[in-house]
């Protein structure tokens, strides 16, 4: 039953410049990870999404981007799941 998620993660990693992705559940536990990403980051990803959603509680969850010199970490929550995609700039 994890195949659909596996397929989504494969699709994500097949995109140019994407090198990793992580999915966390509403408790910050890792649902899936692929590429250059660690399961442990699921907790932090979930926490960042949680905190960011407090900025505008009445709006839909924002797309959070953490940008470093040459990489970016894009986080978004959808329903109970929070996803993070790591991409090269």
């Amino acid at each position, binding site marked *: 039953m994890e195949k659909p998620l596996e397929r989504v993660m494969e699709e994500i990693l097949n995109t140019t410049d994407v090198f990793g992705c992580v999915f966390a559940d509403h408790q910050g536990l890792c649902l899936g990870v692929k590429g250059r990403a660690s399961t442990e*980051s699921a907790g932090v990803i979930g926490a960042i999404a949680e905190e960011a959603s407090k900025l*505008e509680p009445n709006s839909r969850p924002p797309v959070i981007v953490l*940008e*470093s010199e040459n*990489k970016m970490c894009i986080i978004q929550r959808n329903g109970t799941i929070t996803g993070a995609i*790591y991409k090269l700039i």
Partner: protein
Amino acid sequence: MDRIAGQTGYLILNEEGAVVSSAGDLENDEKTAETIMGLVNITSMVDQKAFGSDESFKKISLTYENHCYIICLSNRRIHVVKKNLDKLAVNA
């Protein structure tokens, strides 16, 4: 702070989260300041495997449907800018 294109508000916080200056939509917005501080202080490392232990981020942005917030740290002050976006919503 210079006006940035599309800017609807800004906040400048010191390292402890106290508001140094603010304007526009974010004028005296303590609640936003608190949330931003909470966000910035969550951790110093997101994913060691992906980003390495010494890599840190230059900016954090939160993009909503037609506006966004951009946060960065400069000279020990946390700068937050809220600005409108018209391009994103269009390319559906």
